[in-house]
């Protein structure tokens, strides 16, 4: 046993923040569209690389690049939905057809990115940061930005879901699509906005990860299972659950290094997910 170092807490919270952002998107899409989107990780990657093009290839400052990455990713997500998923939905295809198709989409997008930018890791054009020491815990400016951004965006999502018509419609559609349609909610519009918000949040997560560490074509796909774990932990379709789930998973992963071999670290998230699905499939918050 190794003594608990509060450093792990900070590491866990920052890792968790990005996972949480991406997980919110995944859970919203699942809630409204009712299929598990295996291509979800690719939105993260697209977001990160879009910012890379803006920042490194075009020379724009990082903040602007991050902001630009969002609409780029959203457009991609909408286009992919229109060309690939929407026709299947119209044909009446079920969740499983969409799932398998999304696997195909994820393979295509990931390898397209690798074709263009190769599998080498890439970095944004940023000065290297030094960590500050607060109360004996080291934290970098970037980590603070990640935490603040994640929290702000989550608050934004909360406000959206509770205070706007759109948000209410989204929740209604998520819980009962046919009833929502019959009460006059334009479900296709809700679907479109779900993609916008879901893909947008995930794109931001991608840029944050890229700023904090590096970019590679598999960055999103590599986190996919972890995102699933967060979503399941929080209860599918529940955005607040996804936020909680993301933080918990991130935290547990980082802290686990203290107790078990670091080479099992990625497996930790999977173990949590499997255990949950078996014993409490409705997640920590117990049902949508």
């Amino acid at each position: 046993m190794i003594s608990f170092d509060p450093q792990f807490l900070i590491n866990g919270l920052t890792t968790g923040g990005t996972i949480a952002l991406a997980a919110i998107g995944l859970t919203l899409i699942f809630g409204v569209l009712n299929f598990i989107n295996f291509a979800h990780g690719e939105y993260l990657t697209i977001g990160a690389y879009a910012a890379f093009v803006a920042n490194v290839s075009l020379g724009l400052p990082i903040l602007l690049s991050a902001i630009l990455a969002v609409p780029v990713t959203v457009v991609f997500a909408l286009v992919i939905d229109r060309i690939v998923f929407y026709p299947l939905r119209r044909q009446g295809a079920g969740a499983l057809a969409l799932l398998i198709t999304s696997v195909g989409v994820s393979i295509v997008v990931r390898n397209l990115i690798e074709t263009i930018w190769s599998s080498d890791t890439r970095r944004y054009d940023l000065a290297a940061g030094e960590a500050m020491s607060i109360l004996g815990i080291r934290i970098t400016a970037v980590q603070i930005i990640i935490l603040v951004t994640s929290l702000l965006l989550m608050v934004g999502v909360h406000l959206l879901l509770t205070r706007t018509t759109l948000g209410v419609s989204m929740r209604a559609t998520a819980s009962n699509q046919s009833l929502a349609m019959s009460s006059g909610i334009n479900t296709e519009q809700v679907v479109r906005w779900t993609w916008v918000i879901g893909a947008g949040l995930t794109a931001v997560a991608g840029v944050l990860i890229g700023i904090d560490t590096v970019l590679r074509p598999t960055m999103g796909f590599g986190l996919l299972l972890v995102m699933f774990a967060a979503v399941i932990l929080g209860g599918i379709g529940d955005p607040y659950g996804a936020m909680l789930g993301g933080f918990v998973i991130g935290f547990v992963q980082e802290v686990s290094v203290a107790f078990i071999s670091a080479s099992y670290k990625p497996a930790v998230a999977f173990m949590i997910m499997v255990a949950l699905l078996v014993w409490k499939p409705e997640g920590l918050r117990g049902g949508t």
Partner: protein
Amino acid sequence: MAGLSDISSRREFIKTATASGAALTLAGCTGESTGSSSSETITIGLLQPFTGEVGWVGESSEVAVEIAIDEINNAGGINGNTVEIVAEDTEAGQQTATSAIRKLINSDGASTILGPTSFTLPAVMGIAQDNQVPIISPTAGTSELDDVGGEYIFRTASSDSLGGRAMARIAEQNGYEEIAVMYVDNQGGRSFGKTVVEGFEALGGTVTTEVAVTPGKNSYRSELTKAFEGSPEFVSLTAGAETGSIILNQWNEQGLGGVWGLSDDMQTNGFASEMGDIIEGSYAIGPLSGGDRYEEFASEYESRAGESPRPFTAEGYDAMILAALAAEAAGSSNPAELAEQIISVSQDGEAVESFQQGSNAIEDGADINYQGASGPVDFTENGNIRSPFAVVQSNGDSWEQTGRIEPDQLEF
């Protein structure tokens, strides 16, 4: 990476030439190059990863082998025959490597296979042995292979069991008593990392923590926290350049202190200048660059690739020359006969320093001892080499040799 993009056109050429060659062979069934006499082309198989995280290994070794081949062909070829290489990508994966090596041996008629890496060599060893085709790997360092070679399996790269000890020696020589060891969790990393641990403890030092990391992740902060828990003075890191750069950047950001001992993949001048001040003063082990031979090779490499030689390239060059000299000594390019001469041309005899020299000496009936660009390359009976190592340190921009470790300093 800029220089290596020139290579793609070279690969294009080779692949086109190969494919048309293959097509002709398939059509006319005349692909048997395992004969003797008349002027024919001798094929050497280059089996390395060309894609993925370690794709640079294949690309850079191709440049090195081509330097050797041009030298050989300019000197009249092997036994009067031209040499060409056929390259196949292992993708650092077993299944791919297995079918690739079968293609090289069966379809292309390779007389010798150069490569592959530690990830795939165990998987393809058996195939080469069954087909009686020698493999000379310039990159596979895993200590698992220490006892298996000598008949068909040879390595011009030092085994990790020696490299790891050299690293432990460096730490000891510089007076460090407590070290930590970090390594990536794969064949190359474990084999080197664990040897450092054992070696350092055998020298009487203490290893405060041993941390295995998963490659390909974005953040290693927690692993770093764990590694630096006991405040080690020196940390040995065995990792690929990409993983290593993430770890080192985050170490720097956290201000954790200590000195690093870095592994082969990070021992390029490109890495040193990219990391700059962050790794100033760090140690690594490298090829002895004092020799003229290495300098000759390095400048030729640089003119072709636009950057200084990457790890294992000099070893690749030497592997090719050794294969060629073995074929000369055997008087044929038949793989089994070639294999028998490999150990003998590498040690115990008249010292020669180039293919031309070696070829001439063999013609005069002498027993030769090839001295390579990467070191003396003397094979033991198990197909391993025991070379001295150079101790290098980063000056913030490149690696400079600051010391040397002899093979007998590695016995403890």
